[in-house]
Protein backbone atom coordinates (compact mmCIF):
# COMPACT_ATOMS: atom_id res chain seq x y z
CA UNK A 1 0.00 0.00 0.00
CA UNK A 2 1.18 3.45 -0.83
CA UNK A 3 2.62 5.20 2.17
CA UNK A 4 2.19 8.86 2.57
CA UNK A 5 3.48 11.38 5.01
CA UNK A 6 1.59 14.30 6.32
CA UNK A 7 3.56 17.35 7.11
CA UNK A 8 3.43 19.21 10.33
CA UNK A 9 1.50 22.39 10.62
CA UNK A 10 3.55 25.21 12.02
CA UNK A 11 2.29 28.48 13.30
CA UNK A 12 4.26 31.68 13.40
CA UNK A 13 2.37 34.34 15.28
CA UNK A 14 -1.07 34.51 13.76
CA UNK A 15 -0.05 33.08 10.42
CA UNK A 16 -0.11 29.44 9.42
CA UNK A 17 2.66 28.46 7.06
CA UNK A 18 1.29 27.02 3.83
CA UNK A 19 2.43 23.46 4.41
CA UNK A 20 -0.78 21.63 5.25
CA UNK A 21 -1.52 18.99 2.65
CA UNK A 22 -5.02 17.84 3.31
CA UNK A 23 -7.56 19.35 5.57
CA UNK A 24 -10.27 16.98 6.74
CA UNK A 25 -13.48 17.73 8.55
CA UNK A 26 -15.49 14.92 10.11
CA UNK A 27 -19.25 15.27 10.51
CA UNK A 28 -21.81 12.59 11.32
CA UNK A 29 -20.90 8.94 11.69
CA UNK A 30 -22.54 6.41 9.37
CA UNK A 31 -24.83 5.40 12.24
CA UNK A 32 -25.86 8.99 12.96
CA UNK A 33 -26.54 9.61 9.28
CA UNK A 34 -28.64 6.47 9.12
CA UNK A 35 -30.61 7.62 12.17
CA UNK A 36 -31.16 11.09 10.71
CA UNK A 37 -32.15 9.84 7.26
CA UNK A 38 -34.13 6.69 8.07
CA UNK A 39 -34.81 6.88 11.85
CA UNK A 40 -35.68 3.38 13.12
CA UNK A 41 -36.56 1.88 9.73
CA UNK A 42 -34.78 -1.46 9.58
CA UNK A 43 -32.47 -2.25 6.69
CA UNK A 44 -30.16 -4.95 5.40
CA UNK A 45 -26.83 -4.60 3.63
CA UNK A 46 -26.93 -5.48 -0.07
CA UNK A 47 -23.78 -6.38 -1.96
CA UNK A 48 -23.78 -4.39 -5.18
CA UNK A 49 -20.97 -4.90 -7.67
CA UNK A 50 -21.49 -3.07 -10.95
CA UNK A 51 -20.56 -4.77 -14.20
CA UNK A 52 -18.52 -2.87 -16.79
CA UNK A 53 -21.66 -2.51 -18.89
CA UNK A 54 -23.61 -1.09 -15.95
CA UNK A 55 -20.81 1.37 -15.16
CA UNK A 56 -20.69 2.55 -18.78
CA UNK A 57 -24.42 2.84 -18.94
CA UNK A 58 -24.61 4.85 -15.68
CA UNK A 59 -21.80 7.12 -16.94
CA UNK A 60 -23.70 7.74 -20.16
CA UNK A 61 -27.01 8.40 -18.45
CA UNK A 62 -25.65 10.64 -15.69
CA UNK A 63 -22.75 12.21 -17.61
CA UNK A 64 -20.45 11.61 -14.61
CA UNK A 65 -17.47 9.35 -13.99
CA UNK A 66 -18.12 6.12 -12.07
CA UNK A 67 -14.98 5.48 -10.00
CA UNK A 68 -16.07 2.47 -7.97
CA UNK A 69 -17.69 -0.74 -9.11
CA UNK A 70 -18.70 -1.58 -5.55
CA UNK A 71 -21.58 0.22 -3.91
CA UNK A 72 -21.98 0.36 -0.14
CA UNK A 73 -25.75 0.04 0.11
CA UNK A 74 -28.53 -1.03 2.46
CA UNK A 75 -32.11 -1.75 1.45
CA UNK A 76 -34.79 -0.71 3.92
CA UNK A 77 -37.88 -2.70 4.84
CA UNK A 78 -39.90 -0.08 2.98
CA UNK A 79 -37.96 -0.64 -0.27
CA UNK A 80 -35.84 2.49 0.08
CA UNK A 81 -32.04 2.71 0.07
CA UNK A 82 -29.25 4.00 2.29
CA UNK A 83 -25.99 4.47 0.38
CA UNK A 84 -22.52 5.52 1.47
CA UNK A 85 -20.54 6.95 -1.42
CA UNK A 86 -17.63 9.20 -2.37
CA UNK A 87 -17.59 12.33 -4.48
CA UNK A 88 -14.36 13.54 -6.04
CA UNK A 89 -14.16 17.16 -7.14
CA UNK A 90 -11.38 19.40 -8.38
CA UNK A 91 -10.68 20.70 -4.89
CA UNK A 92 -12.61 18.39 -2.59
CA UNK A 93 -13.00 14.72 -1.78
CA UNK A 94 -16.11 13.89 0.15
CA UNK A 95 -17.88 10.95 1.79
CA UNK A 96 -21.65 11.22 1.58
CA UNK A 97 -24.65 9.31 2.88
CA UNK A 98 -27.72 9.35 0.65
CA UNK A 99 -31.24 8.08 1.26
CA UNK A 100 -33.35 7.15 -1.76
CA UNK A 101 -37.06 6.34 -1.51
CA UNK A 102 -38.52 3.18 -3.03
CA UNK A 103 -39.22 5.26 -6.14
CA UNK A 104 -35.60 6.33 -6.47
CA UNK A 105 -36.23 9.90 -5.27
CA UNK A 106 -33.64 11.60 -3.05
CA UNK A 107 -34.96 11.64 0.51
CA UNK A 108 -31.91 13.21 2.12
CA UNK A 109 -28.17 13.81 1.91
CA UNK A 110 -25.59 14.04 4.68
CA UNK A 111 -21.93 14.85 4.25
CA UNK A 112 -19.87 12.56 6.48
CA UNK A 113 -16.33 13.71 5.75
CA UNK A 114 -15.02 16.66 3.78
CA UNK A 115 -11.41 16.77 2.65
CA UNK A 116 -9.71 19.56 0.78
CA UNK A 117 -6.15 19.67 -0.49
CA UNK A 118 -3.88 22.50 0.59
CA UNK A 119 -0.24 23.31 0.15
CA UNK A 120 2.09 21.82 -2.37
CA UNK A 121 0.34 18.66 -3.51
CA UNK A 122 -1.23 18.40 -6.91
CA UNK A 123 -4.96 18.68 -6.47
CA UNK A 124 -5.79 15.89 -8.79
CA UNK A 125 -8.56 13.33 -8.22
CA UNK A 126 -5.98 10.54 -8.40
CA UNK A 127 -3.92 12.15 -5.69
CA UNK A 128 -7.02 12.61 -3.56
CA UNK A 129 -8.10 9.04 -4.26
CA UNK A 130 -5.18 7.67 -2.25
CA UNK A 131 -7.03 8.81 0.85
CA UNK A 132 -9.92 6.50 0.09
CA UNK A 133 -10.70 4.43 3.13
CA UNK A 134 -8.16 6.16 5.37
CA UNK A 135 -9.23 6.83 8.88
CA UNK A 136 -9.63 10.52 9.56
CA UNK A 137 -7.12 10.32 12.41
CA UNK A 138 -4.41 9.99 9.75
CA UNK A 139 -5.20 13.39 8.36
CA UNK A 140 -3.59 16.53 9.36
CA UNK A 141 -5.22 18.39 12.20
CA UNK A 142 -5.50 22.12 12.04
CA UNK A 143 -4.77 24.30 15.00
CA UNK A 144 -7.33 23.35 17.64
CA UNK A 145 -8.30 26.97 18.03
CA UNK A 146 -9.56 27.11 14.45
CA UNK A 147 -13.11 25.88 14.61
CA UNK A 148 -14.28 27.38 11.33
CA UNK A 149 -12.78 28.34 8.03
CA UNK A 150 -13.83 31.24 5.84
CA UNK A 151 -12.97 31.46 2.17
CA UNK A 152 -14.29 32.01 -1.30
CA UNK A 153 -17.42 29.98 -1.88
CA UNK A 154 -16.79 26.56 -3.34
CA UNK A 155 -19.61 25.27 -5.51
CA UNK A 156 -21.11 21.96 -4.43
CA UNK A 157 -21.87 20.96 -8.02
CA UNK A 158 -19.81 17.76 -7.66
CA UNK A 159 -22.28 16.62 -5.02
CA UNK A 160 -25.10 17.31 -7.45
CA UNK A 161 -23.28 15.21 -10.07
CA UNK A 162 -22.66 12.43 -7.52
CA UNK A 163 -26.34 12.35 -6.53
CA UNK A 164 -27.31 12.28 -10.20
CA UNK A 165 -24.99 9.29 -10.66
CA UNK A 166 -26.62 7.50 -7.71
CA UNK A 167 -30.19 8.09 -8.90
CA UNK A 168 -29.16 6.62 -12.27
CA UNK A 169 -27.51 3.72 -10.43
CA UNK A 170 -30.87 3.17 -8.73
CA UNK A 171 -32.67 3.35 -12.07
CA UNK A 172 -30.37 0.85 -13.80
CA UNK A 173 -29.45 -1.50 -10.95
CA UNK A 174 -30.94 -1.01 -7.48
CA UNK A 175 -34.61 -0.94 -8.44
CA UNK A 176 -34.24 -4.45 -9.88
CA UNK A 177 -32.80 -5.83 -6.63
Amino acid at each position, binding site marked *: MKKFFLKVVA*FVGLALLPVADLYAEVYLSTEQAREVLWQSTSMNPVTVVLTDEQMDSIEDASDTRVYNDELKAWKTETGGWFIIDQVVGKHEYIDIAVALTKDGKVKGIEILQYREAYGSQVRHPKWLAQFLGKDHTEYLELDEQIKSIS*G*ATLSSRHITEGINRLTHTWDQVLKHL
Partner: protein
Amino acid sequence: MLATQSATNHIKRCKPLLGTYVEVSVSSESDDNALLDITGYVFSEIQRIENLMSFHNPDSELSYVNREAYRHSCPISKDMEEVLTAALTLSKITNGIYDISIAPTLVRNGLLPDYLPNVDDEQANWQDVSIVNGNISFKRKALLDLGGIAKGYAVDRALCMVENLVENITVNAGGDLRMKEWSGQSVGIKASNAKGLKSIIRTPMHQAALATSGNYYMDRNKNSIIHSSTKKAVKDKRSVSVFASSCMLADALTKVAFLDINLMPIFNSYGAKAISVDENGKIQDLCEALENG
Protein backbone atom coordinates in the same frame (compact mmCIF):
# COMPACT_ATOMS: atom_id res chain seq x y z
CA MET B 1 -20.40 6.23 37.89
CA LEU B 2 -22.87 9.06 37.67
CA ALA B 3 -22.98 10.95 34.44
CA THR B 4 -22.11 14.60 34.81
CA GLN B 5 -25.14 16.60 33.80
CA SER B 6 -23.22 19.72 32.87
CA ALA B 7 -21.09 18.03 30.20
CA THR B 8 -21.21 19.93 26.95
CA ASN B 9 -22.11 17.97 23.87
CA HIS B 10 -21.08 18.87 20.30
CA ILE B 11 -22.45 18.04 16.88
CA LYS B 12 -21.03 19.20 13.57
CA ARG B 13 -23.11 18.54 10.51
CA CYS B 14 -22.79 19.46 6.82
CA LYS B 15 -25.17 19.46 3.87
CA PRO B 16 -25.02 20.73 0.29
CA LEU B 17 -27.25 23.84 0.30
CA LEU B 18 -27.18 27.33 -1.24
CA GLY B 19 -25.00 25.88 -4.01
CA THR B 20 -22.18 25.20 -1.54
CA TYR B 21 -21.35 23.21 1.58
CA VAL B 22 -23.22 24.43 4.66
CA GLU B 23 -21.68 23.43 7.98
CA VAL B 24 -23.50 23.79 11.30
CA SER B 25 -21.78 23.14 14.60
CA VAL B 26 -23.66 23.34 17.88
CA SER B 27 -22.72 22.76 21.49
CA SER B 28 -25.09 22.40 24.41
CA GLU B 29 -25.89 20.20 27.36
CA SER B 30 -28.62 18.48 25.36
CA ASP B 31 -28.10 14.96 24.04
CA ASP B 32 -27.09 14.05 20.49
CA ASN B 33 -30.66 13.58 19.31
CA ALA B 34 -31.70 17.04 20.51
CA LEU B 35 -28.67 18.57 18.79
CA LEU B 36 -29.44 16.69 15.58
CA ASP B 37 -32.99 18.10 15.74
CA ILE B 38 -31.66 21.63 16.25
CA THR B 39 -29.25 21.35 13.31
CA GLY B 40 -32.21 20.00 11.33
CA TYR B 41 -34.15 23.24 12.02
CA VAL B 42 -31.13 25.23 10.84
CA PHE B 43 -30.89 23.35 7.54
CA SER B 44 -34.67 23.64 7.00
CA GLU B 45 -34.56 27.39 7.47
CA ILE B 46 -31.63 27.71 5.05
CA GLN B 47 -33.51 25.57 2.54
CA ARG B 48 -36.55 27.85 2.94
CA ILE B 49 -34.48 30.96 2.18
CA GLU B 50 -32.82 29.21 -0.77
CA ASN B 51 -36.23 28.34 -2.18
CA LEU B 52 -37.12 32.05 -2.06
CA MET B 53 -33.90 33.60 -3.27
CA SER B 54 -32.21 31.24 -5.71
CA PHE B 55 -31.57 32.61 -9.19
CA HIS B 56 -30.99 29.02 -10.38
CA ASN B 57 -34.46 27.83 -9.38
CA PRO B 58 -37.15 28.93 -11.88
CA ASP B 59 -39.79 28.47 -9.16
CA SER B 60 -38.13 30.74 -6.58
CA GLU B 61 -39.68 34.01 -5.49
CA LEU B 62 -36.68 35.81 -7.01
CA SER B 63 -37.32 34.21 -10.42
CA TYR B 64 -40.96 35.28 -10.16
CA VAL B 65 -39.86 38.86 -9.43
CA ASN B 66 -37.38 38.78 -12.32
CA ARG B 67 -40.11 37.60 -14.70
CA GLU B 68 -42.98 39.78 -13.54
CA ALA B 69 -41.84 42.95 -11.75
CA TYR B 70 -41.28 44.83 -15.00
CA ARG B 71 -44.86 44.18 -16.06
CA HIS B 72 -46.65 44.82 -12.79
CA SER B 73 -46.07 45.43 -9.11
CA CYS B 74 -45.50 42.12 -7.27
CA PRO B 75 -46.11 41.36 -3.60
CA ILE B 76 -42.98 39.96 -1.94
CA SER B 77 -42.26 38.07 1.28
CA LYS B 78 -40.89 39.77 4.40
CA ASP B 79 -37.59 37.94 3.83
CA MET B 80 -37.31 39.19 0.26
CA GLU B 81 -38.21 42.72 1.34
CA GLU B 82 -35.55 42.72 4.05
CA VAL B 83 -32.77 41.49 1.74
CA LEU B 84 -33.72 43.76 -1.16
CA THR B 85 -34.04 46.80 1.09
CA ALA B 86 -30.59 46.13 2.58
CA ALA B 87 -29.14 45.67 -0.92
CA LEU B 88 -30.71 48.87 -2.27
CA THR B 89 -29.55 50.84 0.78
CA LEU B 90 -26.01 49.64 0.14
CA SER B 91 -26.33 50.58 -3.54
CA LYS B 92 -27.37 54.09 -2.51
CA ILE B 93 -24.54 54.51 -0.01
CA THR B 94 -21.93 53.21 -2.47
CA ASN B 95 -23.31 55.22 -5.41
CA GLY B 96 -24.13 52.01 -7.22
CA ILE B 97 -20.77 50.28 -6.79
CA TYR B 98 -22.76 47.53 -5.06
CA ASP B 99 -25.61 46.62 -7.40
CA ILE B 100 -27.74 43.45 -7.41
CA SER B 101 -28.99 44.22 -10.93
CA ILE B 102 -25.67 42.99 -12.35
CA ALA B 103 -27.23 39.59 -13.14
CA PRO B 104 -27.39 40.04 -16.96
CA THR B 105 -23.57 40.23 -17.04
CA LEU B 106 -23.32 37.06 -14.94
CA VAL B 107 -25.76 35.34 -17.32
CA ARG B 108 -23.72 36.50 -20.32
CA ASN B 109 -20.52 35.23 -18.66
CA GLY B 110 -22.12 31.84 -18.09
CA LEU B 111 -22.14 32.12 -14.29
CA LEU B 112 -25.93 32.19 -14.03
CA PRO B 113 -28.47 30.18 -16.02
CA ASP B 114 -30.09 31.77 -19.02
CA TYR B 115 -33.82 31.00 -18.84
CA LEU B 116 -35.29 34.35 -17.92
CA PRO B 117 -36.29 37.18 -20.26
CA ASN B 118 -33.34 38.56 -22.14
CA VAL B 119 -32.07 41.75 -20.54
CA ASP B 120 -29.24 43.91 -21.87
CA ASP B 121 -26.31 44.61 -19.57
CA GLU B 122 -26.82 48.33 -19.87
CA GLN B 123 -30.56 48.38 -19.54
CA ALA B 124 -31.25 48.87 -15.85
CA ASN B 125 -29.57 49.44 -12.52
CA TRP B 126 -30.56 49.48 -8.85
CA GLN B 127 -32.35 52.81 -9.24
CA ASP B 128 -34.96 51.12 -11.43
CA VAL B 129 -36.02 48.88 -8.55
CA SER B 130 -38.76 50.20 -6.33
CA ILE B 131 -40.21 48.63 -3.19
CA VAL B 132 -43.37 50.16 -1.73
CA ASN B 133 -45.48 48.59 1.02
CA GLY B 134 -44.17 45.09 0.43
CA ASN B 135 -44.55 45.31 -3.36
CA ILE B 136 -41.74 45.42 -5.88
CA SER B 137 -41.70 46.86 -9.38
CA PHE B 138 -39.04 47.51 -12.04
CA LYS B 139 -39.11 50.76 -14.02
CA ARG B 140 -37.13 49.02 -16.76
CA LYS B 141 -36.51 45.39 -17.63
CA ALA B 142 -34.06 44.10 -15.05
CA LEU B 143 -32.65 40.92 -13.57
CA LEU B 144 -31.68 40.78 -9.92
CA ASP B 145 -29.24 38.28 -8.43
CA LEU B 146 -28.95 37.90 -4.66
CA GLY B 147 -25.87 35.65 -4.85
CA GLY B 148 -23.81 38.24 -2.99
CA ILE B 149 -26.14 38.78 -0.04
CA ALA B 150 -28.78 36.05 0.39
CA LYS B 151 -26.33 33.45 1.63
CA GLY B 152 -25.43 35.75 4.51
CA TYR B 153 -29.11 36.39 5.21
CA ALA B 154 -29.83 32.65 5.29
CA VAL B 155 -27.01 32.17 7.82
CA ASP B 156 -28.39 34.98 10.01
CA ARG B 157 -31.95 33.69 9.93
CA ALA B 158 -30.98 30.11 10.66
CA LEU B 159 -28.65 31.03 13.52
CA CYS B 160 -31.04 33.46 15.18
CA MET B 161 -33.84 30.90 15.04
CA VAL B 162 -32.07 28.42 17.34
CA GLU B 163 -29.38 30.37 19.20
CA ASN B 164 -31.38 30.45 22.44
CA LEU B 165 -31.57 26.65 22.45
CA VAL B 166 -27.81 26.09 22.54
CA GLU B 167 -24.68 27.30 24.32
CA ASN B 168 -22.93 28.04 21.09
CA ILE B 169 -23.56 27.67 17.40
CA THR B 170 -21.66 28.43 14.22
CA VAL B 171 -23.31 28.37 10.82
CA ASN B 172 -20.86 28.43 7.92
CA ALA B 173 -22.28 28.57 4.41
CA GLY B 174 -19.28 28.00 2.16
CA GLY B 175 -17.13 30.54 3.98
CA ASP B 176 -19.83 33.01 5.04
CA LEU B 177 -20.20 32.34 8.72
CA ARG B 178 -21.66 33.59 11.97
CA MET B 179 -21.00 32.53 15.55
CA LYS B 180 -23.14 33.03 18.65
CA GLU B 181 -20.20 33.30 21.08
CA TRP B 182 -17.54 34.83 18.84
CA SER B 183 -15.49 36.83 21.31
CA GLY B 184 -12.02 35.31 21.77
CA GLN B 185 -12.54 32.82 18.95
CA SER B 186 -10.17 32.27 16.04
CA VAL B 187 -11.01 31.45 12.47
CA GLY B 188 -9.00 30.27 9.50
CA ILE B 189 -9.05 32.23 6.27
CA LYS B 190 -8.18 30.44 3.05
CA ALA B 191 -5.49 32.07 0.97
CA SER B 192 -4.25 31.16 -2.46
CA ASN B 193 -0.91 32.02 -4.08
CA ALA B 194 -0.10 32.67 -7.74
CA LYS B 195 0.18 28.94 -8.47
CA GLY B 196 -3.23 28.30 -6.97
CA LEU B 197 -1.84 26.59 -3.88
CA LYS B 198 -3.93 27.20 -0.82
CA SER B 199 -3.11 27.75 2.80
CA ILE B 200 -5.04 28.69 5.91
CA ILE B 201 -4.29 31.87 7.82
CA ARG B 202 -5.44 32.16 11.40
CA THR B 203 -7.01 35.37 12.63
CA PRO B 204 -9.19 36.37 15.59
CA MET B 205 -12.93 36.98 15.12
CA HIS B 206 -13.61 40.73 15.34
CA GLN B 207 -17.40 40.53 15.08
CA ALA B 208 -20.13 37.87 15.09
CA ALA B 209 -20.03 37.33 11.33
CA LEU B 210 -17.33 36.89 8.72
CA ALA B 211 -17.52 36.52 4.95
CA THR B 212 -14.77 36.11 2.36
CA SER B 213 -14.69 36.72 -1.37
CA GLY B 214 -11.98 35.60 -3.72
CA ASN B 215 -11.50 34.16 -7.16
CA TYR B 216 -9.39 31.09 -6.41
CA TYR B 217 -12.12 28.50 -6.90
CA MET B 218 -13.28 30.03 -10.15
CA ASP B 219 -12.28 28.72 -13.55
CA ARG B 220 -9.96 31.01 -15.44
CA ASN B 221 -11.78 33.97 -17.04
CA LYS B 222 -14.84 33.32 -14.91
CA ASN B 223 -14.89 35.76 -12.05
CA SER B 224 -18.07 36.42 -10.19
CA ILE B 225 -17.32 39.92 -8.94
CA ILE B 226 -18.30 42.41 -11.62
CA HIS B 227 -17.71 46.13 -11.61
CA SER B 228 -21.15 47.73 -11.92
CA SER B 229 -20.14 50.57 -14.26
CA THR B 230 -17.55 48.87 -16.50
CA LYS B 231 -19.31 45.42 -16.38
CA LYS B 232 -15.79 43.97 -16.24
CA ALA B 233 -14.88 41.09 -13.95
CA VAL B 234 -12.48 41.94 -11.14
CA LYS B 235 -9.39 39.77 -11.55
CA ASP B 236 -7.87 40.29 -8.15
CA LYS B 237 -5.54 37.67 -6.70
CA ARG B 238 -6.28 38.72 -3.14
CA SER B 239 -9.14 37.52 -1.08
CA VAL B 240 -11.14 40.01 0.94
CA SER B 241 -12.77 39.19 4.27
CA VAL B 242 -15.24 41.34 6.16
CA PHE B 243 -16.22 41.08 9.81
CA ALA B 244 -19.64 42.54 10.63
CA SER B 245 -22.47 42.18 13.12
CA SER B 246 -24.61 40.25 10.64
CA CYS B 247 -23.58 37.75 7.99
CA MET B 248 -25.80 39.45 5.39
CA LEU B 249 -23.84 42.67 5.86
CA ALA B 250 -20.48 40.85 5.86
CA ASP B 251 -21.44 38.97 2.69
CA ALA B 252 -22.50 42.14 0.84
CA LEU B 253 -19.60 44.27 2.09
CA THR B 254 -16.96 41.84 0.78
CA LYS B 255 -18.03 42.85 -2.73
CA VAL B 256 -17.78 46.56 -1.84
CA ALA B 257 -14.31 46.08 -0.34
CA PHE B 258 -13.23 44.17 -3.43
CA LEU B 259 -14.55 46.80 -5.82
CA ASP B 260 -13.42 50.08 -4.29
CA ILE B 261 -11.06 50.58 -1.37
CA ASN B 262 -12.06 54.26 -1.24
CA LEU B 263 -15.40 53.18 0.19
CA MET B 264 -13.75 52.04 3.42
CA PRO B 265 -15.30 54.90 5.48
CA ILE B 266 -18.64 53.14 4.92
CA PHE B 267 -17.27 50.19 6.83
CA ASN B 268 -16.72 52.34 9.91
CA SER B 269 -20.31 53.52 9.80
CA TYR B 270 -21.47 49.90 9.71
CA GLY B 271 -19.01 48.93 12.49
CA ALA B 272 -17.45 46.48 10.04
CA LYS B 273 -13.81 45.60 9.51
CA ALA B 274 -12.28 44.55 6.20
CA ILE B 275 -9.02 42.71 5.70
CA SER B 276 -7.33 41.37 2.63
CA VAL B 277 -5.12 38.31 2.41
CA ASP B 278 -2.53 38.48 -0.36
CA GLU B 279 -0.79 35.72 -2.29
CA ASN B 280 1.82 35.28 0.43
CA GLY B 281 -0.80 34.95 3.15
CA LYS B 282 -0.12 38.44 4.47
CA ILE B 283 -3.07 40.10 6.18
CA GLN B 284 -3.76 43.79 5.62
CA ASP B 285 -6.39 45.91 7.36
CA LEU B 286 -8.04 47.76 4.46
CA CYS B 287 -9.20 50.73 6.55
CA GLU B 288 -5.64 51.32 7.72
CA ALA B 289 -4.39 50.83 4.17
CA LEU B 290 -6.65 53.61 2.94
CA GLU B 291 -5.60 55.95 5.76
CA ASN B 292 -1.94 55.28 5.04
CA GLY B 293 -2.48 55.82 1.31
